[in-house]
């Protein structure tokens, strides 16, 4: 099978490759497998860079949750918008933000996707309608509702996809946004990345009603759950929901049950999770799940996998190398972008 240059393009662009026939199915699955691998390996390098002191601040990994990023982004078109959290490396990469720009951002370089001003938690790429990268839990939700409101008022058939965690659902801003979205019929796709913990707080100690899809449904919006470890299930659920949103059926809520294999952030000693629980979930590693399936159904073999790993490694080597070349922004420019400079100046 061919590596397919396509796989390094924005996930968004791939959504238009219609999945028809076995070859196409295999290529599509391979693209998703490759993207999940790419995210996994990208974040493993982030760990190294962090340990080496090249990346600082808060860094939140999505290792174990790659099926959410990759599956959901299959359903999004380039004209759609994405709003997410500080745990967004995977979403940014799946959306097509170049790995180099994300590495550079975390290294604090001017070539970073936020010019080094945002860091790991605040990745932005407006050219891809990737609107961050929000550090205040649930803070991105009302903003996403506003992006959707603008499309609604202008009659544009676009989807705004807002991703957030299970913890965010407890914040008042979730409630206000869910009500506004349902009340105003906004083209908003709410995706709850339920990894069962908000930092050290387990789902059952965050929420009286732990069926989050049921909670969302109570606002009068369509809401359902999918297996967040199975990228095919995520893709199917996301495509179905996104299509409905695009067709004007109003906001939809997806609860994707997943699990983070690593600690909450680099600072977190992870004392609150039972190691056996973590191990159990690792048995459902989204990459292994898809790979195993493809071995059975798509005739994928070790060689193919190694090839994928090699391509991903090559891309990331080059991206990191490039990122390291990026310049640091001169401190003279500290005050740039606080306000937009008046016309004619800069």
């Amino acid at each position, binding site marked *: 099978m061919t590596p397919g240059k396509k796989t390094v393009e924005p996930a968004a662009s791939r959504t238009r490759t219609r999945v028809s026939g076995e070859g196409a199915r295999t290529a599509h699955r391979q693209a998703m497998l490759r993207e999940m691998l790419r995210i996994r390996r990208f974040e493993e390098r982030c760990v190294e860079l962090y340990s080496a002191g090249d990346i600082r601040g808060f860094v939140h990994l999505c290792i174990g949750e790659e099926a959410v990023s990759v599956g959901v982004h299959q359903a999004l078109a380039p004209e759609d918008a994405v709003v997410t959290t500080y745990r967004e490396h995977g979403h940014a990469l799946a959306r097509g933000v170049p790995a180099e720009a994300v590495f550079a951002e975390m290294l604090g370089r001017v070539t970073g996707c*936020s010019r080094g001003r945002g860091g790991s938690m605040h990745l932005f790429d407006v050219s891809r309608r990737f*609107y961050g*990268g929000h550090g205040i839990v649930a803070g991105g939700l*009302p903003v996403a509702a*506003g992006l959707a409101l603008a499309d609604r008022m202008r009659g544009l058939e676009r989807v705004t996809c807002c991703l957030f965690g299970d913890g965010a659902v407890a914040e008042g801003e979730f409630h206000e946004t869910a009500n*506004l979205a349902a009340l105003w019929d906004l083209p908003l796709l709410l995706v709850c990345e339920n990894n069962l913990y908000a930092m050290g707080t387990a789902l059952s100690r965050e929420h009286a009603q732990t069926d989050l899809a049921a909670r969302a449904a109570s606002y009068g919006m369509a809401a359902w759950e999918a297996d967040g470890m199975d990228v095919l299930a995520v893709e199917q659920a996301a495509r179905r929901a996104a299509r409905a949103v695009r067709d004007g059926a109003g906001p939809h809520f997806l609860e994707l049950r997943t699990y983070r294999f690593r600690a909450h952030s680099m600072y977190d000693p992870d004392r609150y999770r039972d190691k056996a629980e973590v191990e159990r979930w690792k048995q459902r590693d989204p990459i292994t799940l898809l790979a195993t399936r493809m071995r059975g159904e798509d005739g994928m073999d070790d060689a193919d996998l190694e090839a994928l790993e090699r391509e991903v490694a090559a891309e990331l080597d080059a991206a990191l190398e490039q990122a390291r070349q990026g310049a640091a922004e001169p401190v003279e420019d500290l005050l740039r972008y*606080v306000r*937009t400079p008046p016309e004619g100046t800069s």
Partner: protein
Amino acid sequence: MTKARAAHQAEPVTYREAMREAMREALAGDERVFLMGEDVGRYGGAFGVSLGLVEEFGPQRVRDTPLSESGFVGAGIGAAIAGLRPIVEVMTVNFSLLALDQILNNAATLLHMSGGQVSVPLVIRMTTGAGRQLAAQHSHSLEGWYAHIPGIRVLAPATLEDARYMLAPALADPDPVIIFEHGSLYNLSGVLPPDAGPVDLDSAAVRRPGSDISLITSGGSLGKTLEAAEQLAADHHVDAEVVDLRTLRPLDDATVIGSVRRTHRAVIVDEGWRTGGLSAEVAARITEHAFYDLDAPVERVCGAEVPVPYAAQLEQAALPQVPGIVAAARRAVG
């Protein structure tokens, strides 16, 4: 009514009508503009400012919201990012605390945090101030807090003309602007000057020229300060200059410092609580930039440090009043 027509009419208008006219002009002139907030539509606005606009522009563009300050202010931010020009009315500053996270961490921050990619051309309007016996939870003056936030422009129209002509330049600003309307001003009435046009949002205004002392104020305190200036002239032969800050962020240092350099004395009048209020910043800047020109310490006449009480005599005692301004000015010149 267009600006042209405004220029020709001579009937008096109220501050409320001037602000409404500014919004009507914006809604009529730019389809990207819409007004959103609690009861801005069918109710006509808690203070009647948007009365009639929903009938004229429809419920899409004059949009009633549920009680969800953080939700609809955040939605305004998103709509602005998407290219619309929302005017979000937060009924009063007292309720804006519920939306402060959105204003500080998103509206004011996204442009910089995204490395210049995400602009938020949002205008937020809110009523502010005390004086109508609304008690502690409905009488805040928190302009100083908003003026502390980099990335935001803060306006305090204190005259009919500013109420009528500050909105257009605010909407033309590519970044967030907050407009504070003092509740005591809505019934202010007068005739708009025929030649009036868009206000320069970077400059304070000298409302009364004078040579002996600078009285620096804004918003709801301008009237009291002008009255104090007249008393100082009539009863104490003190010729006071009255400076209306108008734009609370960024502050127009040139006008303020220039005035103090000429008068060598200053009194700041601010309805907000004294400690850590806007008055402190103005006082600090004056002594930083005009230290050697000052003949007396800068005086501050501010709100008493107390949750504003309901009872009339207590509320009046908690707010800056003309006699207090006169006394402070006399201390400074004396």
